């Protein structure tokens, strides 16, 4: 029968060990060594060697092959003082890992030397409970949940699409949700806009949404913008820093404004649109895939593009389309899966069919193409109201006032480019032109 001391002494003769200085040199040189932390979870939470992987000693044998499938990878195993990790190093050798060393003086000595450590931000017990179903998914886990909590998503519109998407993003723990909407809650909204309620009639939508969201999840901070998105305020709002824009606008001027601004601010847009029984969803990732103008270079004439206020929409449709938008947004934040960039999803609620068409980046796109002709905000209302017959070709849409427009189009072309951040010469996008008729973005 061996005592612990005897056992430890025996194990130490059977493994290789390195000093703290040697370990630091390995880390600095990025020689491919993987640091394996075998301490208890609370020790890990108080700080660990940067880049180390964690598996408690108790589950080492069970988990290590999943974490490090390549048994020839050099491993540096450590605990607090080098004793627990000595046993871990021995068992790893027995499992076939061919290049295992023990950090002889452990993490305590690493800290004594003043070498860099990483202190993981731990979820609170309440957050562990709230997000437990996320923590169980390998693609999300604790790191992914922290990403979600750190993420900032800007929702254009707190209407049909903004309702389900904001609720699901909030429930998922997306930490900051900006919401742009100038409207107040109306009775005709409640057939589909589930972030609002009967008792909120007449209340600003951004306030109503904020109350619902904060009641759902106190981790989420709502930044309300009770204003319409316009050429004048878009830079101010986007400059506040957003990871993803979720476009649930209800009119073409705002759609094109969101597109141009997102390209110039380099922010991906998760796009959704709905009408009656049909929905369209895609993702526009600046620099990666196409933009909205690549897909639709010009808006349809007003008579071909009735809004939901004019043509109606099945109440559940925005629930489906907005939920797909929330899904795409979460994937972008988590950097997981394949996004809808380059693919437009077409949902038909009557046939319950999903079709997909390819969307390619247009090298001649006036905004995201190789030689952009629109580099500043234009008058988007004018651009969308010009009749197709008199509307200039897309390449001309950004023509500077110094270049005279074609004579036939004079008076109907978009007014000259608006200086970014300055007051435009034309009217700002307004819902009265072709929106939901409610004075809002959605």
């Amino acid at each position: 029968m061996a005592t612990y001391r005897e056992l430890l002494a025996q194990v130490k003769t059977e493994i290789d060990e390195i000093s703290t200085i040697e370990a630091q040199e390995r880390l600095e040189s990025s020689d491919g060594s993987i640091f394996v932390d075998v301490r208890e979870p609370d020790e890990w939470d108080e700080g660990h060697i940067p880049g180390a992987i964690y598996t408690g000693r108790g589950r080492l044998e069970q988990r290590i092959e999943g974490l490090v499938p390549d048994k020839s990878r050099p491993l540096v195993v450590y605990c607090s003082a080098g004793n627990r990790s000595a046993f871990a190093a021995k068992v790893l050798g027995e499992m076939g890992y061919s290049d295992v060393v023990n950090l002889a003086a452990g993490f305590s000595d690493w800290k004594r030397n003043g070498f860099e450590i990483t202190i993981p931000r731990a979820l609170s017990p309440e957050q562990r409970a709230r997000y437990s179903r996320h923590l169980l998914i390998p693609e999300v886990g604790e790191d992914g949940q922290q990403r979600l909590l750190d993420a900032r998503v800007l929702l254009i519109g707190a209407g049909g699409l903004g309702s389900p998407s904001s609720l699901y993003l909030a429930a998922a723990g997306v930490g900051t949700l900006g919401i742009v909407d100038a409207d107040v809650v109306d009775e005709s909204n409640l057939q589909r806009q589930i972030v609002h309620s009967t008792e909120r009639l007449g209340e600003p939508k951004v306030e109503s949404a904020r109350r619902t969201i904060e009641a759902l999840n106190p981790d989420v901070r709502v930044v309300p913008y009770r204003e319409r998105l316009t050429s004048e305020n878009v830079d101010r709002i986007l400059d506040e820093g957003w990871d993803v824009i979720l476009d649930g606008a209800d009119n073409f001027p705002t759609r094109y404004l969101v597109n141009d601004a997102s390209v110039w601010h380099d922010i991906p847009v998760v796009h959704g649109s709905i009408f009656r029984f049909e929905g369209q969803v895609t993702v526009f990732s600046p620099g990666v895939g196409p933009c909205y103008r690549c897909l639709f270079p010009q808006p349809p004439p007003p008579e071909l593009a009735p809004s939901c206020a004019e043509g109606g929409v099945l109440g559940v449709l925005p629930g489906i389309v907005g939920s797909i938008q929330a899904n795409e947004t979460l994937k972008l934040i988590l950097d997981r899966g394949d996004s809808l960039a380059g693919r437009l999803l077409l949902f038909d609620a009557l046939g319950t069919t999903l079709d997909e068409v390819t969307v390619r980046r247009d090298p001649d796109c006036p905004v995201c193409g190789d030689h952009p002709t629109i580099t500043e905000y234009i008058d988007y209302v004018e651009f969308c109201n010009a009749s197709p017959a008199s509307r200039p070709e897309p390449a001309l849409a950004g023509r500077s006032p110094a270049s005279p427009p074609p004579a036939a189009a004079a008076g109907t072309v978009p007014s000259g480019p608006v200086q970014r951040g300055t007051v435009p010469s034309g009217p700002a996008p307004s819902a009265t032109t072709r929106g939901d008729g409610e004075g809002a973005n959605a």
Partner: protein
Amino acid sequence: MTVVRIPPTLRAEVGGARELQAHGGTVGEVIDDVVERHPALRPQLFQNGGLGSFVNVYLGGEDIRTLGGLDTPVDANETVILLPAMAGGA
């Protein structure tokens, strides 16, 4: 026969149909066949003698602008999708 999907905004012009069967060896001929039977569609799809730039047409999931335009050959059993932009989100 080729199936042509009709978007909601154009269904009034075709008697409410969500899709139509049409003949033709190219996308242009297929659309012409539909428009001949439903002339009210013409101004909704065409401008200045060509397909309006506000209407996207897909064959086999690809925008015909990236194929051969209206001259793109159509095989039987392929589906043509007419797709105008929709702005609704509220």
